[in-house]
């Protein structure tokens, strides 16, 4: 049993922290976090990360990586997260799509995409959810039919975030018709689609916290056959085998630590009745509880990451990380709102807004965390069925 880092990991972490202290600003962090697009500053920042050798540590050497342990990439995610909840600037490609291409893509596909992902040049957006396929994703209807050299794709996706600035759509579509004899999930394939392909229309959906997500319409979009990922009709398996690793990289508890730090500073600096809020036992108790839960989330996350980088089977463990971290975000922000009292309602633009309006923004944002990437309810079904062997309910 060992909860420490190796010397090389420790050194990487120190070097990275020094770099982030100098180069990463709140403005850059927010561009990505609020899904408004990777602006010029964030692109520049990702090139700086590449130039300093911080990206691609755990990726294979033959595609431009350094072939080291995934621990290095987790350190990168954690240390970025500690600064205003920042992500890797080109996030979906680096943390979600790339690993599946490595696992299931052809050599040609790996050569085409992996080096550009590691070098921070391209971004992907996920194309899974449809208006009638949310929690029941396998019931998706978007159709990809054989058109000779290419697939011809028709249908609609929704809540596809980052589509308006990504180069590629990581698209799931049906390659065999619905049939009572074949389970729905056995007719789905994955594709890489150029976002500027003729026939794609993107319409914005604005969320309650001001982030942009999108509806995406496909009207006879031709996708070359070499952009099929792996085998036809295996797409749903690829999505599911990637889900543990995705959760390990997307639900990063350290991204919540800036909220805790903001609240610690706030209660030390803010007075009520001539005394600092930090002297109020109730407030101390609430903030301590946030710190307790954040530490617990960290060790849960470390555990499922550890399973992953040792090649041990993951089933329900990343789901625990997901459910716990997303619900922690809601509890944390709710506590922060209670502590800010009447000031909690003020938004960033307002006179008197405390903590740069971050808490009221996070509050609105936090409604999404237990829904996006799978609801807490579906998560708990998975935990009960895979983790404890309880029978399926249907």
């Amino acid at each position, binding site marked *: 049993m060992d*909860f420490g880092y190796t010397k090389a990991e420790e050194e990487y972490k120190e070097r990275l922290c020094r770099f982030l202290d100098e180069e990463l600003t709140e403005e850059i962090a927010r561009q990505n976090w609020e899904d408004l697009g990777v602006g010029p500053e964030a692109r520049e920042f990702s090139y700086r990360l590449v130039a300093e050798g911080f990206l691609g540590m755990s990726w294979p050497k033959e595609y431009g990586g350094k072939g080291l342990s995934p621990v290095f990439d987790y350190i990168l995610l954690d240390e970025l997260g500690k600064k205003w909840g920042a992500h890797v600037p080109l996030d979906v490609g680096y943390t979600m799509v790339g690993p599946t291409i490595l696992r299931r893509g052809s050599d040609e596909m790996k050569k085409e995409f992996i080096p550009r992902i590691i070098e921070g040049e391209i971004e992907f957006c996920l194309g899974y959810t449809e208006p009638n396929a949310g929690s029941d994703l396998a019931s998706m209807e978007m159709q990809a039919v054989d058109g000779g050299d290419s697939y011809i794709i028709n249908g609609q996706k929704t809540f596809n975030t980052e589509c308006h600035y990504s180069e590629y759509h990581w698209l799931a579509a049906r390659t065999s018709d619905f049939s009572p004899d074949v389970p729905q999930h056995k007719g789905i394939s994955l594709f890489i689609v150029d976002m500027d392909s003729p026939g794609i229309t993107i319409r914005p959906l604005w969320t309650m916290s001001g982030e942009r997500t999108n509806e995406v319409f496909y009207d006879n979009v031709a996708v070359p056959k070499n952009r099929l990922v792996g085998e036809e009709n295996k797409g749903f398996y690829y999505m599911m085998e990637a889900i543990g690793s995705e959760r390990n990289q997307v639900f990063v508890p350290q991204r919540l630590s800036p909220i805790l730090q903001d609240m610690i500073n706030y209660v030390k600096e803010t007075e009520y009745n001539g005394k600092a809020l930090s002297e109020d036992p109730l407030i101390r108790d609430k903030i301590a509880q946030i710190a307790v839960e954040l530490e617990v989330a960290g060790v849960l996350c470390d*555990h499922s990451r550890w399973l992953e980088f040792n090649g041990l089977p993951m089933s329900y463990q990343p789901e625990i990380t997901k459910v716990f971290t997303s619900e922690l975000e809601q509890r944390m922000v709710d506590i922060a709102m209670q502590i800010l009292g009447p000031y909690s309602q003020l938004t960033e633009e307002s006179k008197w807004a405390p903590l740069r309006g971050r808490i009221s923004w996070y509050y609105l944002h936090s409604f999404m965390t237990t829904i996006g990437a799978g609801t807490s309810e579906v998560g708990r*079904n998975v935990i009960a069925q895979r983790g404890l062997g309880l029978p399926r309910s249907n």
Partner: protein
Amino acid sequence: MDFNFTSEQERLRKSARDFLKTECPSSFVLEMEADKTGYSPELWRKMQELDWMALIIPEQYDGVGGEFLDLMIMLEEMGRACTPGPFFSTIVLGGLSIMDWGNESQKKRFLPGIANGEIKITLADSEPETTRYSPYPISTVVTVQDTGYTINGTKLFVQDAEVADYMLVSTRTFDSGSIRDGISLFIVDAKSPGISLTPLQTIGGDKQYEVVFDEVKVLEADILGGVYDGGRQLDSILQKATVCKCAEMVGGGQMVLEMATEYAKERKQFGKPIGAYQAIQHHCANMLIDVESSRFITYKTAWMVSQNLPCVKQVAITKAWVSDRYKNVAGLGHQVQGAAAYIIEHAMPLYSRRASASAVAFGDSNYCRQVVASELGI
């Protein structure tokens, strides 16, 4: 990073689990709750034959020389079985304290006896004025006389005092103005004249006592480590005891989870196992989240303790979390298992009662969160 125990440690866990499954079923635990001493000399002897008491005692004092994490495994298994008897008090509160803080002659005098199961020790710290938990408000006083020292005062919640041969007693030797200073720990012969015990009846069914010290004579040689440094010693002793208590709670929580899951798979209502209903699945999922999170945070903290890393905040975080979660798991365990588990002979109440006792041992979650807050600099 490595979440694995060594294969030797896994063998230790398996042998402890197998042994306790046979020797310590819940019916035996209930029997021991009704027993005056709460302890079976026969079980104690068998545990000694398996070297459990010797496990972490260094080899030069006739022990096995195991590490702190070995003890965590053992306590997790004992928590799983609600094992009655003075193991925790003797090994954790007594043995570790003497190993860490005793001087050479105290180690020679006590450790071999602990290792071979002949000496049982406990800690007497809390006092009546501790209406909210804190280790420091100590008014049990020591006065110096020509022939040695005299202790006067009342201690509460002293575990296993009736079977203990010695007690580690916190006393106030001088008033420095700071409650953490001026404390000294004495190793007191539990059969000394002037000591009287009154058993306390607790919902946990464990054996706790009021211990009154009336003109109890001790010698300078009985001061732990021979130094007037009780505050620092107590901090360290309680820190380890807290992590050990968390290990026990993790084992208990795991057992409740297994009982409830088993029941949910077998019990049928409306034509289906109740575990097929999402309401029950979500209760069980919540229990699993609680137990796994408690386990990993406890292991991490135990590892930090074993590495001698600073861990005041970490220990408080762990106890705050595990105390609350074990109680939650017990509540859900009752809810899933329904009326059957409300009956006294059922194993379930044993765990919910123990969860309540453990939650307040060595600092409840409210106390721990205040420690965390201070450590956060607020």
